[in-house]
């Protein structure tokens, strides 16, 4: 029997068709499920980026804790602040001292902490852990709870804020945005 003209019939035969449907179904289900599984990427050795150790979060500041003057970097103090280890007013005071000691005219420090991304500019309770310090005419001005959100929102709109996040002791993700440089007009 000459089977040359049978390919079309084979392809459109029922078993082959069911097989094709099965393969497509498996593909669609895997695509749908892939979002539920976190896939670890390969370890990429990093030698391309330089080191940036003059980041404001890595500056040493002193805060008195239980009557003892302690020195830590800003980031460590922020972790302590989140854990309730220090008072936010003491932290704010130490930041102000740092800005004053550097004596860079028209320099502004912005720190905004929150439980979601891009928390700068949020008002109310969300703004209670935000800091804005401006050094102008030889003096440091500290933003108030009222006007700080608006000011911070301005820096965020200009894309000046950098963001870092970490997990606190309870596993909650804490985000904070920061900037230290020339003030926005």
């Amino acid at each position: 029997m000459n089977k040359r003209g049978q390919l079309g019939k084979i392809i459109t035969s029922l078993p082959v068709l069911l097989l094709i449907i099965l393969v497509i179904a498996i593909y669609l289900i895997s695509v749908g499920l892939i979002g539920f599984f976190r896939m670890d990427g390969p370890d990429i050795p990093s030698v391309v980026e330089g080191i940036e150790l003059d980041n404001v979060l890595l500056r040493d500041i002193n805060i008195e804790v239980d009557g003892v003057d302690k020195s830590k970097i800003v980031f460590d103090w922020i972790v302590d602040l989140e854990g309730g280890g220090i008072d936010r007013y003491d932290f704010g005071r130490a930041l102000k001292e740092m800005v004053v000691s550097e004596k860079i005219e028209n320099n502004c420090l912005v720190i905004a902490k929150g439980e979601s991304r891009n928390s700068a500019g949020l008002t109310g309770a969300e703004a209670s852990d935000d800091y804005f310090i401006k050094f102008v005419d030889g003096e440091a001005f500290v933003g108030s709870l009222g006007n700080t959100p608006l000011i911070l929102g301005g820096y965020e709109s200009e894309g000046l804020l950098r963001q870092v996040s970490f997990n606190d002791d309870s596993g909650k993700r804490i985000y904070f945005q920061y900037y230290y440089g020339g003030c926005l007009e």
Partner: protein
Amino acid sequence: MRVLNRKGDTPTILLFVVTIVLVLAALFYFATFKGGFAEASESVSGVLNDVAFYQNYLIKQSEIMGKQSLEGLRTIVEDGFVGPVLPLSEEELRKKFKEIAERKNLNIMGVENFYVKVRDWNGVSFKFEDGGYVFEMKNLLIYSIDGGNKIRRTFSFIVEFDDVGKVVKSYKI
């Protein structure tokens, strides 16, 4: 009258039905797609920023811990003493560095490997070399996880100190 044999039409009809189903599925996917590329991109960018920061953070912490170790161990020289000050041994430096690292550990997720490596002194060295002190850590793993995104990075670095504990330079290797 001869009845037409339609048995051979079943696969063809099925092909048509399956095509319709696939088209509807694709349309459904398009309709429910939220276009959230920006949101996904922001999350990835966030973990990348975290990892870049953690890298600098740990190098800075190594500088601080190394400096504090050297200052804490510096021999007190009596007045009138004439002679060379012996360099600190690796054993003394290791013990002091570990002690300081344990105190400074804030249990931040993503940087645990640094403290584990220091505790086990695995891939870590801190010794006197060429008139100063050199702290080296190899194959340090850091990571950041946010939602469905995770970035891991492995790097090695060196911090060089002078003989009184001042940082001379830090660099990745």
